[in-house]
């Protein structure tokens, strides 16, 4: 079999990792061969990132040993891992703000450009431009300030930085969701190229379709254990998701009805809103309606979400809730609007705070009586939300930073169900969560719709938009390029046509 003929490049045996009482990896054996694009898939907290972060030196294993190119391998830091040839691109943003692209690309390597203690910045820019040219990037240069670039582009710079060191193993951890369309293509190109050169790529993702499309092998993890490793010829979406979750998740994923339904009442209305590139934007969201907005990440749809919540103020026109303009987030909340931000860890949640404090924050006005907030009411609300949304935690005092990605996202949903918001704006609500959590989220969203809430669903995932929206609005260059009605026959290709 081809699988066994290839040279072994990395091996971990009996690897065990515990975070306090939580066991992340249980006696895991993992092998990686040259020329492989290995997909790692599993639910949140299944240990897929943990294996590779240990291999890359970001953390150390509690016990077990690793071999890299036949030699024992125990990197103490990410730098050591990188210098040895294992580079990892992380889920979180990892560029240095406030400096140029070149300074980011060559961070830690300034000496190469230094003379008598002074850095020849022009030489550095030139070198950076050469590197960018190698990856066919022309949109920005080495001298560009990183702050002028979008989140998506910055992610691309991280990838190039990792590739600059010519790694033997590249680990891509949930990165594609943070990339733009073009960025994704560049990353796929890099991955393919590496595999052809006899190096190895480990691709960690929640996106089953992407994994099945790009990987040569896929390893499924569940609760810190490797369940199975499949070859490309055995790939089957249903089989893999069943392995992941440990049971058949059934067909119920998105909404099962294909009829667009909505109430009469207008819950949220954009009236000739103008803001930056957006000109005279008009939109109505009705009671019990899910309005989806799709497009490329910089088409302006995320700004629409922020405008709807009062987090940005339109330069002309207004966003109105029951005839009154939405002026600020706190006023929006009082009028019954909720907002699930795309940037979960920086905008939607307070990581260094208990679950309880996070869930209750938007509800404080509602539950405060003559300045007094009753602890009993608080506990009742929080316990109810934890139960309703099945948030996995020891107790409500647990810090959100200790939760897995999917549970964090559930907390940011719980904030608005606790606040009893009637209009909920969701910006990429299922970003970085696994199939089972996604399924749960879709059920929550559908239940919200049924209970009469108006939902503005902004997403970069076409399947999700098609599966959930009553009305689907496609945006391109800050304008509505098309509007689709919910239909059984709607295909991703129909939408992409209006996006690009």
């Amino acid at each position: 079999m081809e699988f066994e003929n290839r040279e072994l490049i990395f091996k971990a045996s009996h690897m065990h990792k515990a975070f306090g009482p939580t066991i992340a990896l249980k006696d895991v054996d993992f092998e990686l061969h040259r020329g492989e694009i290995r997909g790692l898939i599993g639910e949140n907290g299944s240990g897929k990132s943990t294996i590779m972060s240990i291999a890359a030196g970001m953390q150390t294993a509690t016990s077990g040993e690793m071999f890299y190119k036949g030699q024992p391998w125990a990197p103490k830091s990410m730098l050591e891992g990188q210098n040895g040839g294992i580079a990892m691109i992380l889920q979180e943003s990892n560029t240095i703000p406030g400096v140029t692209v070149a300074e980011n690309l060559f961070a830690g390597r300034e000496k190469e450009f230094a003379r008598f203690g002074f850095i020849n910045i022009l030489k550095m820019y030139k070198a950076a431009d050469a590197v960018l040219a190698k990856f066919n990037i022309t949109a920005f240069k080495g001298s560009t300030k990183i702050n002028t670039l979008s989140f998506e582009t910055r992610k691309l710079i991280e990838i190039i930085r990792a590739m600059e060191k010519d790694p033997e193993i590249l680990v891509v951890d949930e990165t594609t969701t943070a990339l733009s369309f073009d960025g994704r293509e560049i990353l796929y190109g890099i991955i393919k190229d590496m595999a052809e050169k006899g190096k190895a790529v480990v691709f960690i993702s929640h996106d089953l379709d992407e994994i099945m499309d790009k990987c040569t092998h896929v390893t499924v993890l569940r609760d810190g254990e490797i369940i199975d490793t499949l070859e490309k010829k055995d790939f089957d979406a249903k089989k893999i998701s069943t392995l992941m979750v440990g049971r058949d998740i059934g067909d119920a994923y998105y909404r099962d009805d294909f009829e667009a339904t909505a109430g009469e009442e207008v819950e949220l209305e954009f009236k000739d809103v103008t803001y930056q590139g957006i000109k005279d934007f008009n939109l109505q969201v009705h009671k019990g309606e899910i309005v989806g907005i799709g497009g490329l990440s910089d088409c302006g749809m995320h700004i629409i979400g922020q405008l709807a919540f009062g987090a940005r103020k339109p330069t002309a026109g207004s966003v109105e809730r029951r005839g009154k303009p939405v002026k600020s987030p706190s006023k929006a909340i009082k009028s019954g609007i909720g907002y699930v931000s795309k940037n979960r860890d920086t905008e939607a949640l307070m990581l260094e705070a208990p679950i309880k404090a996070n869930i209750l924050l938007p509800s404080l006005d509602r539950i405060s009586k003559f300045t007094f907030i009753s602890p009993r009411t608080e506990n009742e609300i929080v316990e109810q939300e934890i139960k309703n949304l099945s948030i996995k935690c020891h107790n409500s005092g647990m810090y959100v930073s200790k939760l897995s990605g999917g549970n964090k996202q559930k907390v940011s949903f719980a904030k608005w169900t606790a606040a009893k918001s009637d209009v909920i704006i969701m910006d990429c609500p299922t970003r970085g969560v696994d199939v089972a959590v996604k399924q749960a989220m879709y059920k929550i969203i559908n239940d919200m719709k049924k209970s009469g809430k108006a939902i503005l669903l902004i997403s970069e995932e076409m399947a999700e938009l098609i599966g959930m929206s009553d009305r689907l609005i496609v945006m391109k260059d800050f304008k509505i390029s098309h509007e689709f009605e919910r239909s059984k026959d709607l295909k991703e290709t129909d939408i992409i046509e209006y996006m690009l």
Partner: protein
Amino acid sequence: MKNKEDKVEKIESTPAADGDLNKSSGGTAVAQKTGFVQKVVNAFKNFFAREHLKEFLRNHIYDICALGGLIICLIIFTIVPGRHPRDGKLLLWRPQTVKALISQVSVYFILAIGAVFIYLMGCMDISVGYQVGVFAAVFIIVANLSNLFVALLVILIMGIACAIFNAYVGAYVKLPTVMSSVILMQLFNGVLLSMYGDKGVNSYSLTMDLQAVVGSTWFRVIALVTLALIAFYFLTFTKVGKRSRAIGTNKRAADLAGANLLATRIVCYIIFSLFLCFGAVMLISRSNSVASADTTSYQMDIMIMLLMGGMPLSGGMKGKLFNAIVGTFTYVLLNMGLTLCGVEVAYIMLVKSAVFVTIVCLTCRKPGNLLPR
């Protein structure tokens, strides 16, 4: 329209493969209706279960260290200074010493618990001493001209003005609030100079006897307890306390969850200023007068006290009233204890700075724990 309550209940629990953690362990599951005694026993069992104890220790490590520091100070300064040669009582526990201790604690205590409100948001104020100095002098001048009530009213208005200034500068000019307090410090320093040095006055004295009215130790204790309870109420059971902690944890997320930055800051700074005013009155009640140099070191004292009490200077969820109380007592005890041991003032300063450096070194290793990021 349907009843709002129904809506939440309609969201049934999801079929995802989780929730087992909820059932298997954890404090929430155990607290079933089994009667009060059983509840208490369960709570104890839960608390001493290994992972809960560990979690508790992890979350309260600074509080425990701070309390430990206070206890160590108490033990050392009970033993080391020894007994009084005449009456044979332990020096630290003689009624005179305790009285002096409470008198010293009283002003610091009020200022420190007021400061908690702004430190929770990650704000810092270095104009405290100058503000209190001016408030105290103004209070005396106005009280001598009219009466105590008018005097209190005047300084309260001044305090509120300072609060609004601080909050606005922070929110609108987007300056760190410590910068607005630098402006206030300069301003009040100038006012103090014009009130004292330029006029050749060393101190202001009240013509009426405030000391006789509010100067008794018992009155002080009652006043402190009352103020602490008020602060505790606001910090624990109201929007102000919860939102200020939220802002200290993540400003952006707090703003997007309805904790309006400006509004919360204004309220917190006003509370802080009110406490400064009470502190000024408490200061006057000690000797019926106030001198120019009485207050100028307060801002740094307060910062050190809060640090000693385990308050994270970056604000957030871990800060609480407890930190201010423990910190104040430790600091005053350290001051008095060293004096009782016969250490000279210059060396006391040295010891204090050594303690300060030690705390900073111990706590700022982990980013984001105690000091601002």
